[in-house]
């Protein structure tokens, strides 16, 4: 599949901050943005892997960030502004997934995931929007939701609830920030073959007796290619989507379109 770039796709002169971008979807988005000319800030829990990823992208910087901490997220955005002058694009992507049935899930497991997936998204949106607003930047904020936000998935009660909340948060932020010219949208990916999925796949099979690969083949036509997600992220980051705000953009090979 050829990914074709158009003139209007250019993100030259734009500064983008992506959380959870040392690997997986976050890195794919950062790589795409850099290819379109953006100055990218790679951010992850681990400073070394963030730096290594940034080293591969022209003009990129890195900054370790724990999205559970407001101070850490604020510092990430401050780094972007002081190092690169401004923030135009913010992608709240950092997230984890673990598995447990509702009846067995310790409160600690629920809370830990919520603190990263939901609190982290809230803090990223909050501080990204504050920086854009202070500078009068008509920026674009993108949250990474999930198709699990739209329905129930066994063993993922916490993950799905966190993503449903992120999608809803995105809408409120969009409405509040529209007068400032700041757009906020969510991308809802289906299942990609990233570490987040592959690390859990066997356990999913063992606990449910379901062949996850087979389900994916039937419902999505295969695993999601993360480059496709990067394309949507590029579309939402730039001027082509100037009238799009507060909406969910599903990338799932038709999974949620079908009743069966």
């Amino acid at each position, binding site marked *: 599949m050829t990914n074709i770039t158009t003139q209007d796709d250019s993100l030259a002169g734009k500064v983008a901050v992506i959380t959870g971008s040392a690997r997986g979807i976050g890195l794919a988005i950062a790589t795409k943005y850099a290819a379109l000319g953006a100055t990218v800030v790679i951010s992850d829990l681990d400073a070394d892997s963030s730096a290594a990823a940034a080293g591969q992208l022209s003009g990129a910087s890195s900054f370790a960030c724990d999205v559970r901490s407001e101070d850490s997220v604020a510092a990430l955005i401050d780094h972007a502004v002081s190092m690169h002058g401004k923030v135009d694009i913010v992608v709240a992507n950092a997230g984890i997934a673990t598995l447990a049935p509702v009846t067995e899930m310790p409160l600690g497991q629920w809370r830990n995931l919520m603190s990263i997936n939901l609190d982290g998204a809230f803090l990223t949106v909050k501080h990204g929007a504050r920086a854009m607003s202070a500078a009068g930047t008509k920026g674009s904020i993108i949250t990474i939701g999930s198709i699990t936000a739209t329905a129930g998935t066994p063993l993922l009660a916490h993950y799905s609830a966190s993503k449903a909340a992120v999608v809803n948060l995105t809408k409120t932020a969009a409405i509040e920030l529209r007068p400032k010219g700041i757009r906020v949208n969510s991308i809802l990916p289906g299942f990609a073959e990233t570490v987040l999925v592959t690390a859990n796949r066997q356990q999913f099979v063992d606990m449910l007796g379901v062949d996850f690969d087979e389900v994916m083949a039937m419902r999505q036509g295969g695993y999601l*290619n993360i480059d496709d997600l990067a394309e*949507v992220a590029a579309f939402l980051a730039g001027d082509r989507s100037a*009238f799009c705000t507060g909406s969910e953009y599903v990338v799932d090979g038709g999974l949620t379109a079908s009743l069966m």
Partner: protein
Amino acid sequence: MNDLQDRRAIVTGAAQGIGLAIAKRLVAGGARVALVDINGGGAEAAAAELGGGCIGLTCDVRSTEQVNASVATATEAFGGLDLLVNNAGIEIAKPVTELTDDDFISILDINVVGTFRFTRAAVPALAAAGGSSIVNLGSIASVAGGPLLSSYSASKGAVLRFTESAAIELRGAGIRVNAVCPGLADTPMAARLAAPLEAVAPITFEELVAVKQGRLAAPEDVAETVAFLASQNSSFITGSHYLVDGGLTASLI
């Protein structure tokens, strides 16, 4: 722009408004377009002005014969078909109690069955091409209703469900099917809605637009999202609907 280089497309309702903007954007991306409209003169004039191998065709989407002929003509002219944009549609802004049978039936015939007719006719050529794409025009009225919109929203909701089922059926054939759902747009169709809406709303149309969307959608805004879903940059996206509504549906109040 070359995101649609050498793609061969049909756009229905392309003589004006959003359809024309879509045709222009596809051409700017490198595609050849068959502009189809019940106003054949308008379609031909627009095609002539666009150049680049575009053609204009007269077609009433209520007629299976005319739809099939249009697809055959376009496919033969271009040597194949990669894209179909089902944009032809009408609106009828009347209260439920004043709609006639003919009103309701004709809006379904054009907006829904027209989309179905063109899809059915185009599938063989689209399947032969591989990596092809159908984009149907939904609306914010696909996802919710409103006063005076009963027949229109019924039709646009139907377009959405049709899009989803067609997407599942056609995925194996390499044809993606998606919908774009615009909000209130700066087009003749939306302008006709202003007076009837004002008659039933406590605020002016301008105020409604300002509060709900910030501004009217430009036809170009809609065309960009159509172009994205038409291009191979969206190759994993199917059965989805992408809103272009300035936040209208994102707000509860």
